[in-house]
């Protein structure tokens, strides 16, 4: 079974600064997908960024980028130029590639990010 670990329960960043959220995972599979989801107080889980394990290039979406280290099974999220609206709970998630688009998501426990004005 796959597991996802987010060991930092909380982090804080100054507005306009950069912050990195850590995530490690454990799997015996060679092909899979990794995701970062954001959950603001409104509760809706919003996709931030995704990475295919077979791609060596790290994914980037505007101010969000990842550092994917497959051998180390590490998948960190970097948020640049932090904004007040980035304050939320962030979840790292894993999905197997073998059962396709409908494989379940396995989530970490999440990290609460606060942004100081």
């Amino acid at each position, binding site marked *: 079974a796959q597991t996802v670990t987010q060991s930092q329960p909380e982090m804080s960043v100054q507005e306009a600064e950069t912050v990195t959220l850590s995530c490690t995972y454990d799997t015996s599979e060679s092909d899979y997908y990794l995701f970062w989801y954001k959950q603001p107080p409104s509760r809706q889980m919003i996709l931030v960024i995704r990475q295919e394990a077979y791609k060596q290039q790290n994914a980037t979406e505007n101010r969000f980028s990842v550092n994917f280290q497959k051998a180390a099974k590490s998948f960190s999220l970097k948020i640049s130029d932090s904004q007040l609206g980035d304050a939320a709970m962030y979840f790292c998630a894993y999905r197997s590639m073998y059962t396709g688009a409908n494989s379940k998501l*396995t989530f970490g426990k999440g990290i609460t990010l606060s942004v100081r004005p």
Partner: protein
Amino acid sequence: DAGVTQSPTHLIKTRGQQVTLRCSPKSGHDTVSWYQQALGQGPQFIFQYYEEEERQRGNFPDRFSGHQFPNYSSELNVNALLLGDSALYLCASSEYRGGGNQPQHFGDGTRLSIL
């Protein structure tokens, strides 16, 4: 284009009662997954429905059951409610034949409180 919709938003029940939660998937999606999110925790997979059948199931007791209708909407039923069932229940939809990297789209959830 409507996203995933869930009802009700919030529900209060007492121990031993039964509850039904509802989900309508995003337009064009035919697969519905349910997750339970305890306070301060990450979501845990309950089960997934496609073509009106349960396709995958997480580590949840038989008290948790579901149904999918021909219009792809889904219900989550929980019997004999326990205090530990208090959580946010999230519904996510996807397209079964979609690309493997396609994300699941989540609803706003139903907050279930057990007294």
